[in-house]
């Protein structure tokens, strides 16, 4: 049965998983991803196994889903693509804008010469998954050729002649019987918080740390590339924050921070790590044991620091209120990691308008309201578009949405 088509917007965990579930039932999928890399934020997450034991963070599952989706015959993937408008007359007609790819995925052999030779930092981006082909992409905001045609080293040096910097954007029209919106979340930007993110080199977000560990396997201070002696994690940055009107727990940060902290201790045991927190949330099925071990390995302080200052030697001074003495204490760290929360996708407003969907006051989608109307409208949602979720919860959310779509398309098929 290959009678039906579904358009899936968003190539992150939810979009990839829903694509696979539906494709396995013989439904044709077009998966539209805005960026040039699939896998959403989670494809940049590191494996957090400690003492050779899996801690069930789910990062490897994202890699597996991505691999299976790109090789599935029923899934057509459109990266660098954005939905411009959708109309419904029986079926959906979707106009999609496709950015130029610049790198020919058929020709590119992932030799990395373009990345090596490019004179600018960040003008050639590399992905996190080898299954994302090509592994590299041109950053339109930085590339000198796209600015003023002054540099074309990558094109000239590519041994496969895979780079065409003159490629133009194109339009693509898709027809679909149902639409799934899975555009995900926006990691909280900690720039507005008094923690010096973006100002002090050695203040990172958990997302930065995930990527650093994934790429280099060790933690280093960005200021001098040397391992830090003391690291502080600050939890709930952008979550559980009434001043920001972020009245939600992002669910995943305690697990992400503490699993990374223990993974760092595993490989670099000389590093001293402190976690500042409000309430440690339960994550994983073996949480009780994990937390006991973590309390032995990590310093746990139940306080959220007010400010961070940089010392003359690029160390970071953290002030916080000590519960036992009621005094403001000061501690010096070499590296501070901000556990940034899950916030509504920055395109949510635009998407809601495009599809006539309703946003909750929080800025997330109303998953219950969507569900109730989806069997009439044919527009479904999945994943962190409707709130914070872990990788496993996102996979589950995608499975449930896939089930609803199947029922919508094939109401009488058991």
């Amino acid at each position, binding site marked *: 049965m290959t009678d039906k088509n579904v358009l899936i917007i968003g190539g992150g965990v939810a979009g990839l998983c829903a694509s696979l*579930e539906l494709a*396995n*039932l*013989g439904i044709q999928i077009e998966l539209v991803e805005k960026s040039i890399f699939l896998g959403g934020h989670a494809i940049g*997450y590191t*494996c957090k*196994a400690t003492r*050779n*034991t*899996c801690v069930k963070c*789910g*990062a*490897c*599952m994202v890699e*597996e889903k991505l*691999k299976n989706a790109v090789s599935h015959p029923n899934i057509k993937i459109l990266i660098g693509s954005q939905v411009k408008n959708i109309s419904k007359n029986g079926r959906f007609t979707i106009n999609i804008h496709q950015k130029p790819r610049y790198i020919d995925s058929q020709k590119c052999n*992932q030799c*990395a010469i373009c990345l090596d030779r490019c004179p600018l930092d960040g003008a050639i981006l590399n992905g*996190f998954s*080898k299954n994302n082909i090509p592994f590299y992409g041109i950053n339109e905001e930085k590339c000198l050729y796209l600015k003023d045609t002054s540099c074309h080293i990558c094109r000239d040096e590519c041994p496969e002649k895979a780079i065409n910097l003159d490629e133009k954007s194109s339009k693509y029209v898709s027809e679909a019987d149902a639409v799934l919106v899975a555009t995900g979340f926006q990691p909280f930007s900690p720039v507005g918080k008094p923690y010096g993110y973006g100002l002090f080199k050695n203040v990172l977000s958990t997302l930065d740390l995930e990527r650093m560990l*994934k790429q*280099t*396997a060790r933690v280093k201070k960005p200021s001098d590339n040397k391992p830090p002696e003391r690291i502080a994690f600050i939890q709930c940055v952008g979550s*559980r924050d*009434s001043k920001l009107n972020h*009245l*939600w*727990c992002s669910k995943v940060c305690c697990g992400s921070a503490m699993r990374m902290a223990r993974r760092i201790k595993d490989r670099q045991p000389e590093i001293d790590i402190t976690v500042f927190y409000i*309430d*440690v*949330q*339960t*994550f*994983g*099925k*073996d*949480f*009780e044991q994990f*937390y006991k071990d973590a309390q032995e390995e990590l310093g746990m302080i*139940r306080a959220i620091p007010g400010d961070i200052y940089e010392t003359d030697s690029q160390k970071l001074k953290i002030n916080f209120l000590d*519960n*036992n003495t*009621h005094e403001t204490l000061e501690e010096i760290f070499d590296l501070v990691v901000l556990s940034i929360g899950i916030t509504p996708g920055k395109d949510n407003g635009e998407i809601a308008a495009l599809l006539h969907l309703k946003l909750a006051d929080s800025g997330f989608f109303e998953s219950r309201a969507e569900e109730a109307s989806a069997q009439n409208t044919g527009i479904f949602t999945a994943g962190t578009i409707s*709130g914070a979720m872990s990788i*496993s*919860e996102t*996979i*589950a*959310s995608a*499975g*449930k*949405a*896939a*089930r609803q779509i*199947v*029922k919508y398309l*094939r109401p*009488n*098929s*058991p």
Partner: protein
Amino acid sequence: MKDKTLILGNGPCAHYIAEDLLSTGADIVIATTDKTCDFSPSEHSGSIEILTDTRLVSCRGAVGDFRILAAQNNKEIKRTVAGVIVAEEGQRKSNFSQYGLKASSNVIPLFRMKELLLDASRDPGIFSEVKKVAFLNGVFQESNPVIAEEIMQSALRLQSDLNLKTYILTNNLKVAGNGLETLYRETKKVGTVYIKFTSTRPEIHSESDGSIQIEFIDEITSKKFRLTPDITVVDETIVPSDYAADLAKLLSIDTDPDGFVQADNVHRFTVFTNRKGIMTAGPSRIIQARDDQIVDAGNAALASALLMAGLPAVPENRAEIDKGQCIRCLTCYRRCPYRAITLNTRVVVEPHACERCGICAAQCPRGAIHIKDLEPASISKQMTPGDTPREDAAFTPFLVAFCCSRSAVQAGELSLCMGHKLPPGLKMIEVPCSGSISFDHIFAAFKKNADGVLVLTCHEGNCHSERGNVYARQTVDQIADRFPQIGFEKDRIALQTLASNMGTEFAEMVNRFEANIIELGPSGLKK
């Protein structure tokens, strides 16, 4: 006749699944140990059979053809179903002993408070004698969002509708659930007092008149307080039901450390088990809020729909048992993680249930199980050294790395993609699971002049075949232990674990291994 799905359970999750499947015309059987079942589906096209007071006795066969034997009042019931979904409810245990308390009229478990609140909506007078209610929430043991939500909901009702003073004593407040942070703030707004413990714990005393006194040091003001609640509500621990534990055994499903019916393994996300065609959903697999049970139900229905669309594909070159060599020792039957080997008049590999992990073949003491392309003889044909010499070292070690297809092969490819340099003499050999590697495979590598053999496999707890990496470690350890006895260096063989996304670590591992082997020099077994 269409194939049926058996749903084991009688709680909300089981009913959501039943409703979902029936609505698309699937045929289902619900079996429950409960005496009654009040499930009444809305308009549906599928057929339904409800078996109450029924316990599973055995389940034979494999995906698409499970032969179920159950007992109902000493009556035997036999059904054949295509798939099974375990959707049993969890069980609650009140934590009185943790707090050194005994149940009484003023010390009640959480479920009793929920009952009282239901009664209070008809008769608000039942709380007329009560002024203060204290909730104990994960004070000595970590709680979870399901219990935290019920406690906060109860406090909200008592405080705002019934004008009682409520206190929640808690260690880490679990707000990692939908809407719980908002609920927390609502309770605080109406006046619920939260007493949070970090480094201290309260002292709870039962007085001779039965009243409760809770003494604690407030961690914010450092002052000593005494609370004398009229009602003290004790929280609960959620555990799998005894029947769920029985089901796991009867169905040969791996459980997690707490006994929930699903291994704690990322490959089982969301509702899958080690057996194809047997799913597990809702509180039978995890502590779960109602919303998440609906999500699980959708996933179970989806898995069932996929099964109805066709049996899982039979792997190419799956395991085959040589009747002549098999002595029916049943090692394969015990070791197959997927229960794909069944016993009949002879031992049979169920084609649709086999995942081609190769564990049975590697573990068979008689070498009676064969998997094409995975035999030591055919694998050893792949063991050819590269022709690029390492000029900066005394010699170019020939390294054979057996790589699990799910983790190490992926990590190795990623490593190259990231631009890491790998040893020129490294030969990666892809195997479906490291559990497929036998002594013969490893000896074949040394016979083929390998200077070192690496087994690269998944982290513990991450093996798709559950214990394949454990078997591989046993094999490697046994060989390494014997090597010194024959005058061979034990460091020529090693096992390392990694994940598919560990490209950098892959390079580190193989390069470190190469350095070790360069130090040892060429293998003494080399011809």
